[in-house]
């Protein structure tokens, strides 16, 4: 079953001087259990596409279905967890209470909420930090909390908007590995926005290469890499070949001009 079906999506923003075409005739299908990365330079509309799927940005035209229903209905049913570019934690809540925030909104009773938070903290290696406050944690830890928060109500779809963009490379590698194992273990569907080629190749089953002005899909690359991955996969010829394909596609889109 397809979790996301997008057909001829167009999104136009009315900027001050002239309208900006953020997305032009974008088609995309994401099957259940897929890990799809959206990659491209700034301004290619990858974040806009993700926000459209999440019903955070309205469509100008086109047809978009999430779980077979409209994006808005899917959002109302809390069909997805969303991880933003920044952790967007609430600084007045400690880590546990940040993770239980969506559960509070779902009116889950307190013991169950705390039980769930504990499980998710365990999953992301945060168990020791439940009583800390966001500003007492490093950027990488904060982003882990925001992933734990997105996973807290067990969504089957996880949308991530450059979640590791602001982190150093070592932390990023570590979190990539973590995310890969999480995805493999839970079998959930992921859509992941990034501008890092190795990150996209390492994590994805499919890579959607986008180009700017107007934002559109250039190419969709299916990966042939094994399902179970370790960081040293990135030095193998198969990995380098796919990374090369992605880079070539970006070049065709004049992304390097």
């Amino acid at each position, binding site marked *: 079953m397809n979790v996301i079906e997008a057909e001829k999506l167009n999104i136009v923003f009315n900027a001050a001087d002239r309208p900006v075409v953020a997305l032009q005739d974008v088609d995309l299908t994401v099957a259940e259990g897929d890990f799809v990365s959206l990659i491209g330079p700034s301004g290619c509309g990858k974040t806009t596409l993700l926000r459209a799927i*999440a*019903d*955070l940005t309205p469509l100008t035209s086109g047809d978009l279905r999430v779980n077979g229903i409209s994006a808005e209905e899917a*959002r*109302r*049913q*809390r069909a*997805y*967890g*969303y991880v*933003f*570019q*920044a952790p*967007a934690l*609430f*600084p*007045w809540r*400690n880590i546990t209470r940040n993770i239980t*925030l*969506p559960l*509070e*909104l779902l009116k889950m009773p307190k013991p169950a909420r705390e039980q769930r938070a504990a499980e998710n903290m365990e999953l992301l290696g945060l168990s020791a930090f439940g009583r*800390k*406050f966001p*500003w*007492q944690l490093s950027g990488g830890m904060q982003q882990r909390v925001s992933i734990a928060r997105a996973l807290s109500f067990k969504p089957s779809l996880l949308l991530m908007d450059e979640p590791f963009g602001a982190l150093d490379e070592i932390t990023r590698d570590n979190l990539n590995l973590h995310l890969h194992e999480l995805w493999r273990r839970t079998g959930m569907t992921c859509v992941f926005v990034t501008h890092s080629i190795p990150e996209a190749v390492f994590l994805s089953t499919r890579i959607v290469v986008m180009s700017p002005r107007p934002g559109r899909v250039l190419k969709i690359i299916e990966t042939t890499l094994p399902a179970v991955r370790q960081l040293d996969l990135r030095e193998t010829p198969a990995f380098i070949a796919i990374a090369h394909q992605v880079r070539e596609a970006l070049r065709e889109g004049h992304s390097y001009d």
Partner: protein
Amino acid sequence: MTDFLRARALPLATVTAMLLAAWYVAAYVLNAPQAEALMDPDGPQGFWAVLQAVWSMDRPVLPTPDQIATNLLNSIFNNPITSPRNFLLQTFYTAQTAVTGLALGAIFGIALATGIVHSRVLDRSVMPWVIGSQTIPILAIAPMVMVALGNIGFTGLAPKAAIVGYLSFFPITVGMVKGLRSPEPMQLDLMRTYNASRTAIFTKLRWPVSMAFLLPALKVAVALSVTGAIVAELPTGATVGLGARLLAGSYYGQTFMMWGALVLASALALTLIGIVRLAEFWLRHARGGRL
């Protein structure tokens, strides 16, 4: 500790000592002509005699701090607590007005800010009036409020609290409009992904985020509430409260009475601000050390 003394206590003590010295000099200069006029022409003369005369004046133009303190303690300890001569009783009346008015102002101010943040119509139509309300001098409006409310049967505490509320709602409204609008776009988007209701967004995000704006606004409102309470006590025919004592003191040239009222009004404001700071301390503690 010695570092603390050197960095904080020493400069403060120096300035305080200089102010006190200046005060005593000024008291001598201002009071000496009157004291000399009242002196026994056959008695001893000279600087020390004048100084002694200044010391024992009943109605000095400018009383010294120790005279004010003695007089105040005398009024508090040598009168029953129910006597209008007891300054503590008068302070209680003023505190009652200030706190009741502050509560009214806070409730009204927060309600108004909530409305303004959630409704574009209210934002456009009400905000100019909120600002306009503070352009009218409170001294002009206070007697009218007393008369108007008195005519429909509100006397005593209610009209005075209304005047305090009128003054103190303003900083709270302005602060809370800013505070309730201070969530980041990303935090609001996050709530949207949870399909959170307006009420949930208010209680889980806007309200907690606005605390950093409410507490400073409350401190301003507290200072205004004491001023407001004293102004509200002036046109009541000078019956109760520090404001009434201030007015009576100025009528009869009772400088001790005026200074006593002044000292207690400022002590009252400091106490109320202390309570706000206590709330701030508690909230900061509950939030792990940051507001």
